[in-house]
């Protein structure tokens, strides 16, 4: 696009972000502060992910953007348009065809392969934030590996509800060291973080933090021996493709309590329907 550099950000900014990313990859799960820039979309709408994608995107990369697992949700459409406009890259909805996938709140159902990069949009990167609001304190807690409070919080959930009441943005421990917020993905997706062949990058624009999970890194969801981590399951199957193993969105179909369940990952669902047909 005239008047703007390739992928919107200037080259110095992109280099600064790539350096921060390298640091993030070198210290898996560690939140690296970076000089985040204002983007032409609002904070909270994916500016962190957009900056990361802009920094790593090459002219021949194929980009996929999803929000809630779907390619056609409004914000996914908006971000995909943005990169079509400022980088002129090819885009796709097929998980298997994409080099870079920017996502909000989901990890695709189709397993990722080596060489792919998954970029997460992160609202609040600090997993300890809702226990300790001060950034000064939480940085110290990470430095000292002082994560007892997180287990206390999970224990209090069990004491009160009988279950760990965190259903999304479920905290994980990366490579046995840093406790990390996997962004608000449902805990259903947490097992996909572990040992994934793809590089996973996390960008929080407003908070000016980024972090990474390198390929094939050990990622454990926090739990207790007597209350092991478990993911959501449904009594239903997808009403469109019949999948009994994907994350389902509930869709209200009338005002009489009628509802159906469909795959949140639209590409996965369509591919399955194509195969069945």
């Amino acid at each position, binding site marked *: 696009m005239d008047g*703007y550099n390739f992928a*919107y950000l200037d080259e110095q900014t992109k280099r600064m972000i790539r350096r921060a990313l390298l640091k993030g990859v070198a210290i898996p799960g560690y939140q690296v*502060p*970076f*000089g*985040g*820039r*204002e983007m*032409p979309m*609002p*904070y*909270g*709408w994916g*500016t962190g992910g957009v900056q990361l994608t802009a920094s790593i995107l090459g002219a021949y990369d194929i980009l996929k953007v999803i*929000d*809630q*697992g*779907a390619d*056609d*949700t*409004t*914000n*996914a*459409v*908006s971000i995909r348009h943005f990169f079509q406009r400022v980088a002129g890259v090819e885009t796709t909805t097929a998980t298997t065809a994409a080099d870079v996938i920017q996502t*909000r*709140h*989901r990890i695709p159902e189709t397993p990722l392969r080596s060489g792919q990069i998954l970029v997460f949009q992160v*609202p609040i990167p600090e997993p300890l934030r809702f226990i300790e*609001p*001060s*950034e*000064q304190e939480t940085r110290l807690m990470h430095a000292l590996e002082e994560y007892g409070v997180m287990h206390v919080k999970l224990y209090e959930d069990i004491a009160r*509800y*009988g*279950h760990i*009441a965190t*259903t*999304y*943005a479920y905290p994980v421990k990366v490579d046995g060291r840093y406790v990390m917020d996997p962004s*608000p*993905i*449902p*805990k*259903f997706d947490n097992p996909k973080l572990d040992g994934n062949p793809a590089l996973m990058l996390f960008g929080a624009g*407003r908070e*000016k*933090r980024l972090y990474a999970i390198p390929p094939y890194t050990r990622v454990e969801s926090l739990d207790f021996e007597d209350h092991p981590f478990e993911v*959501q399951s449904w009594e239903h199957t997808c009403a*469109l493709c019949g999948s009994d193993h994907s*994350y389902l*969105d*509930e*869709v209200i*179909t009338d005002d009489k309590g009628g509802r*159906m369940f*469909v795959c*949140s990952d*639209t590409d996965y*669902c369509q591919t399955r329907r194509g195969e069945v047909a």
Partner: protein
Amino acid sequence: MYVAVKGGEQAIANAHRWLADRRRGDRDRPELEVAQIGDQLRLAVDRVMSEASLYDPELAALAFKQASGDLTEAVFLLRAYRTTLPRLAVSEPLDTASMRIERRISATYKDIPGGQILGPTYDYTHRLLDFLQLAGAEVPAAEIREEVTEAEACPQILELLNDEGLVEQEIDDGSEPADITRDPPDYPMDRAARLQMLARGDEGYLLALGYSTQRGYGRNHPFAGEIRLGQVEVEIHVDEWDETICVGEIALSECQMINQFGGSREAAPQFTRGYGLAFGHNERKTMAMALVDRALRAEELGEPIIGPAQQAEFVLAHADSVDASGFVSHLKLPHYVDFQSELDLLRRLRREHAARQAELDGTRDTASPQQEER
């Protein structure tokens, strides 16, 4: 049968067309010119420039127009443009003492060298709606004195106190200030970084926090030592010529608060300072900023931290309207996946609750009447 929502692209395009149409309004009336906004709605333009931290009255007016008068949106538009600009030079520190004064008042002395100059102010106007403006009456031109007030004649009031040692002295230690537009926030922040964040903080937010200090949540006994408004020269040092040259003038508002004194066994008691600075005519903002700046010095000055305005991380992390409006508005984005997770858990918890309740009711039915009464 319901098929997952499609057509987001078309919906977005249509929404934007409708928005542009609304913005233009009634085609029978002339379109608002950007120059008119810069000329007649200059206080809005000044606020947009300040909070966007970019001095460009024309583009700020454009942003205001494009945002249909939504100041927060206009700030965001201009801020997003600012981030794409190259850095050509870093200016020398501005010398507000040599400001070409339009307005300058002090609440601490009745008469001051250079005089009290009210300038174009809303102070002392009676807030009566002027129906003549509704009827489009002509406004008589103001008489402007030809002779410009000499800069030397308007010394900074706090410097006069300084001569007596009554007010703490600000000392330039020569260190390179942080740059909040390039470096991520690193708490605790020094005063230079704090002032930068306050300078582009949301006016309403700072006003509320400043006000809270006056009502007892971290009082600091402020006096408006001096408020000045006018044009200041911007100079840059050109290395090739080894010379400092003026590249233009910008309008600034500055507020210096004089606050309660501190002192210790070693140091004699002195007034302390709070400082506010903003682009254009932004007096309320600079006063609020000065109050909050002073409140944030509580730790440095050994004061108890009892009010929200004194908590640096809280105040600074939430001051930026671009940050805040973005994150609040993101709640409009789809959250069906997370919501589904919560629904699932809630239903499970309710099922378990109902089962426990049923079990409890069962044991109650078989219990003896006496037990039940207790």
